């Protein structure tokens, strides 16, 4: 027990390190995560809404709103864990120095995931607040749930980024990962259009953690909470998290120790 606490404290140090560096450039770091969903909402939500009419009894802007939180969480997690982790590992040698202190490889991994959870939770929560202020949430109380769902969705997405970071041979290859994995996940997981009438796609996206996070956020934002469905999505997210976590644990050990 004592060991576990010490280990967690050491992992927390990794979070602190990332935060200390992150806050140095706070504005530059936060702007894209907030600006992107704002632009998306303006262009699609405001611009397209009048042409689209209602989806499941919601305006298009309302339909789009929870997906913006999911998107923020996905991009925060993916970029921080892919580019961010890769730069820390390869160019800044952060872990080389860290590993000379009592911090171990596992604590680095736990710390990175904690950091992803907190950052995505925070950013997702902020986006949620903006949506509430804009009146796009049929269930405004959902703002209390957003940070938790966004963080939970971010960890498996971050793990994908981390695996990409240990697999790529140079930093340009992240572009490929983005184009063939992250972008399709982003565009096809029900953020922009409902999947209910598209059985094949609906089946396919079950295999992405992002989709399950999107569904949870939508249920919360629209006030259409279904206990069974929520349990299913949370369960799948937990499975993804556990599987990808174990996988990244193995790979990060291989990468940081020889």
């Amino acid at each position, binding site marked *: 027990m004592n060991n576990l606490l010490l280990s967690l404290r050491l992992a927390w*140090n990794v979070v602190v390190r990332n935060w200390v560096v992150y806050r*140095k450039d706070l504005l530059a770091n936060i702007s894209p995560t907030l600006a992107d969903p704002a632009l998306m909402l303006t262009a699609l939500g405001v611009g397209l809404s009048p042409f689209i009419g209602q989806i499941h009894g919601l305006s298009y802007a309302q339909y789009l709103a929870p997906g913006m939180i999911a998107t923020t969480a996905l991009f925060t997690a993916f970029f921080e864990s892919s580019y961010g982790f890769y730069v820390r590992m390869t160019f800044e040698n952060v872990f080389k120095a860290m590993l000379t202190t*009592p911090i171990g490889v596992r604590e680095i991994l736990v710390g990175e995931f904690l950091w992803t959870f907190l950052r995505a939770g925070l950013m997702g929560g902020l986006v949620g607040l903006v949506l509430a202020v804009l009146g796009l949430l049929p269930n405004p109380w959902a703002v209390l749930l957003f940070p938790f769902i966004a963080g939970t969705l971010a960890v498996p997405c971050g793990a994908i980024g981390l695996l990409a970071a240990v697999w790529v041979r140079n930093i340009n290859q992240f572009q490929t990962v983005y184009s063939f994995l992250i972008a399709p996940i982003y565009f096809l997981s029900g953020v922009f259009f409902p999947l209910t009438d598209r059985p094949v796609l609906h089946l396919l996206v079950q295999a992405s953690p992002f989709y399950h996070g999107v569904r949870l956020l939508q249920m919360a934002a629209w006030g259409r909470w279904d206990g069974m469905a929520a349990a299913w999505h949370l369960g799948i997210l937990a499975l993804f998290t556990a599987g990808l976590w174990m996988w990244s644990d193995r790979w990060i050990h291989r990468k940081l*120790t020889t």
Partner: protein
Amino acid sequence: MPDSVIIRARGVTKRFGDFVALQGLDLEVRAGECVGLLGPNGAGKSTFIGCLYGVVLRSGGELSVFGRDPAKAPRLIKERLGVVPQENALDDGLTVMENMRLYARFEGLGKKPAEGRIRGLLEMLSLDHKSDVVIRALSGGMKRRLAFARALLADPELLILDEPTTGLDPTVRHVLWEKVLSLRHAGKTILVTTHYMHEAEILCDRIVILNRGVVVGVGGPRELIERETPGFVGIFAPEDEAVLRSHLRDGWEVFFQGRRCCVRAPRFEDLIALQEGSGCQALQLRPSNLEDVYLKLTGRELADDE
């Protein structure tokens, strides 16, 4: 006294695929000793150092640091050692103070004691006037001193220095070696790798020379010189070789260091006599030193892969 052994390596091996980096390395470092680990690039020095705190997992052999196996209990070992890695690995965007505070935290120092400790170390390494400067703006020598200060944060019993002075100007080098010396006097155990033979000779109690993953020589600096290359060395121009060879006596040796033709003889007077007898004027006459030992034991040729 087995308790006073800090590092004990018995037949430590490390393979990277087909490449054997360490092949049966034996080494002991006792408490309070300053041991110099010398050897060509690629001899396995950094690999061995990595083994000591668990970032390199050995393929075989026995290894204990503070009586523990670094592959199994790296944290307990790392709590008691400080490392100056070959690359400084400092957070470039942070200030000196931010960096030190962060690492004090990693080492588990409380806020209050950390502040005092950091001030003391920055002062000791003449960095106190740079506390609020961003690391990116520091000179190479300052960065190295900061890496030193960082390694000393937790007042470690064992200090591992991986080429601490490589690439630094002589002034900074002397300052750093001075610090190492004072740490040694303070009773720290030190393991240092370096390519500066002269400094290793003065600083280290014991020298371990590594070549292609095996120990090829161990002993005190004087002892090694007496054993491997006793006497004095005269350095001549290369075209003198044939003449010099014709004047050699038993127990003398001719060898090349780069383009220089060297003659080693037991006594200084022998070399004087050689100059007079052969008519060749030496460029330099000097006592045999650790560099001679190093070059003899590691082979005077460059390794195949260099």
